[in-house]
């Protein structure tokens, strides 16, 4: 299992409103790995996340995506989620009137029913999330508020990671989960991500900054530019990018 390919993206081309955003992206993720995808603004990072999660309005013009050995692109967003694909949103949406804990429980139960497990009740649920909310430094009061409504930027991101910890996805795609976080919140988020790293699971971290990668050490770092991966390496690549920016990679890619 550990060496099996969990996600295989082959030559993926994606168009949004007449504009090509991904131009032949290829990426393989094995169980147990953590991949960081970096790149300047507009390089296609968030598009990749949205396409993996199944968002409408992204037209796949070429290429394929295999997840757990099946064609991911055939599945509805909720089916992907129930098969253990989780997207940590860059901008988590506010849902007034819907209780945060209720959403979380509904999500967990949707997953459990899909796997043939029985649904859990409110009591079991509270037991299950107790240590997770402690880890994410979230108060119980916070659970009873409407989903993301009036949450600070940091609270929204911690809430995303809490959801991830509860749902225990096999593949987590975290879209700029580190943006807008102060140092303390960044540490909390990093602890959450690290707590779920094991040989069964994999993570794709989409980020602008290197600082999260000091706390969550990646196995692979990729640079995305103009819709394809132009350079791959390990944590040292991230550090170099942090020091020198993206220009050298871009020009290196051009001369190739």
């Amino acid at each position: 299992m550990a060496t099996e390919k969990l996600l295989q993206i082959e030559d993926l081309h994606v168009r949004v409103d007449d504009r090509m955003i991904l131009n032949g992206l290829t990426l393989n993720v094995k169980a147990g790995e953590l991949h960081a995808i970096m790149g300047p603004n507009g390089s296609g990072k968030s598009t990749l996340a949205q396409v993996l999660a199944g968002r409408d309005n992204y037209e796949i013009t070429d290429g394929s995506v295999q997840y757990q050995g099946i064609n991911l692109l055939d599945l509805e967003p909720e089916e992907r989620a129930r098969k253990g694909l989780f997207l940590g949103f860059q901008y988590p949406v506010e849902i007034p009137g819907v209780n945060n804990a209720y959403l979380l429980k509904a999500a967990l139960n949707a997953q459990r029913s899909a796997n043939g497990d029985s649904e859990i009740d409110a009591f079991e649920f509270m037991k299950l999330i107790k240590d997770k909310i402690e880890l994410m430094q979230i108060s119980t009061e916070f659970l009873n508020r409407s989903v993301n409504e009036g949450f600070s930027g940091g609270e929204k991101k911690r809430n995303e990671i809490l959801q991830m910890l509860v749902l225990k996805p096999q593949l987590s795609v975290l879209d700029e989960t580190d943006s807008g976080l102060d140092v303390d919140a960044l540490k909390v988020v990093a602890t959450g991500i690290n707590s779920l790293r094991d040989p069964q699971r994999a993570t794709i971290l989409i980020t602008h900054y290197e600082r999260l990668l000091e706390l969550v050490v990646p196995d692979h770092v990729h640079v995305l530019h103009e819709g394809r991966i132009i350079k791959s390496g390990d944590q040292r690549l991230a550090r170099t990018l942090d020091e020198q920016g993206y220009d050298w990679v871009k020009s290196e890619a051009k001369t190739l």
Partner: protein
Amino acid sequence: MKTKDKEFSDLVKQKYQHGFVTDIEQELVPPGLDEDVVKLISKKKNEPEFLTNWRLKSYRHWLTMKEPTWAHVRYTPIDYQSISYFAAPKNLDDAPKSLDEVDPKLLETYDKLGIPLHERAKLAGVAVDAVFDSVSVATTFKKKLSEAGVIFCSFSEAVQNHPELIEKYLGSVVPPRDNFFSALNSAVFSDGSFVYVPKGVRCPMELSTYFRINAANTGQFERTLIIADEASHVSYLEGCTAPMRDENQLHAAVVELVALEDAEIKYSTVQNWYPGDENGIGGIYNFVTKRGDCRGANSKISWTQVETGSAITWKYPSCVLRGENSIGEFYSVAVANNFQQADTGTKMTHIGANTRSTIISKGISAGKAENSYRGLVRVMPTARGARNYTQCDSLLIGDQCGAHTFPAVESRNRSAKIEHEATTSKISEDQLFYCRQRGISEEDTVNMIVNGFCREVFKELPMEFAVEAQALLNVSLEGAVG
């Protein structure tokens, strides 16, 4: 709950003891309306003279009135001369003989709502021997009520047994001249419910039309009168979550509530008349006049309604706050889907000093439906220190529906405090995608958001009703997205 169910099923299993109580002569009154028809209705019901005259006066006034056109609804004109005003006994030959003959879609809905099997046949209008023995159930409840001194009976019975109460209170809240439909109703009303709670009595149970004798086929012109005498308390539930089959397209009911000093009336409605098919054909027009009169000091009237049915709903449960310190409340959820049109809201008329009113209205529109809130808060010069709080929220699902609010405030007292808040929101693509990404289906997401939106109103409903209302909403909005 368990024991209640047991009690229920035991009662249902009992042998039918009382025979059918409905004993209407098999005489058919041809469609159409004139003074003779009004007199005939009154005669058939063996009514005292004052009531016959009251009907006739109402009829004569109705002739001078015009059907209102100000509501934000559209429908083909009603031909009042083609309606039969005396409910002929149900034609048993036309009714389905068993559940096998009932529209499977209707049965599917009952299933989703969790309606017990023995009630389904009754709701679907199956013409069989009493499948659900409402008579004996009602008898049990009636005994308990009469011990408390509460009168709860059909309007016709009340006319026979308590004419003095009818004469005193009928039309005292909604006068026949009030509007076109109330005048029509006053002339030709068929039957309805009557409640009287004596001084100082707290009604020992929730009163529900469900347990009423003669509930079937009270027809399109229903009349309800509820009187809570000094320091009494009553909670009344109207309607049913199951879709009701009915051949009458026009429903023009009148409901009058009277709360005397220190009395409280809570009136909850869950209405699910047939809304018509996806194209809006065949649905019911629900034009109802509902008003409560807080006649005594410190009295309180609360209206809570969950409206999901009807092709057209046109109703404004209102409160006249006459007594000092009296309180009026209006909590409403109105859902309109497909081609439904709902124009609903409330009127709060502050007359007494320090009267208070609260209006919480939640409108949900989906499909091609139009949903309007229409409200009037009127503060009379005498109502010093009056307060009103209005909150009016609309939720849109999809981009072909409409939500409209027409709030009006008339204050003639400078010490009055009136607040109005309104919001319109839409279930966004982003919200749907977010929840689907968490594994929750589109339909469940909509239900979750809608129920969250309605929570403030649902919590005002009696517990069991609230659970049913929630299920009902989910069914009503099925297929609203995508």
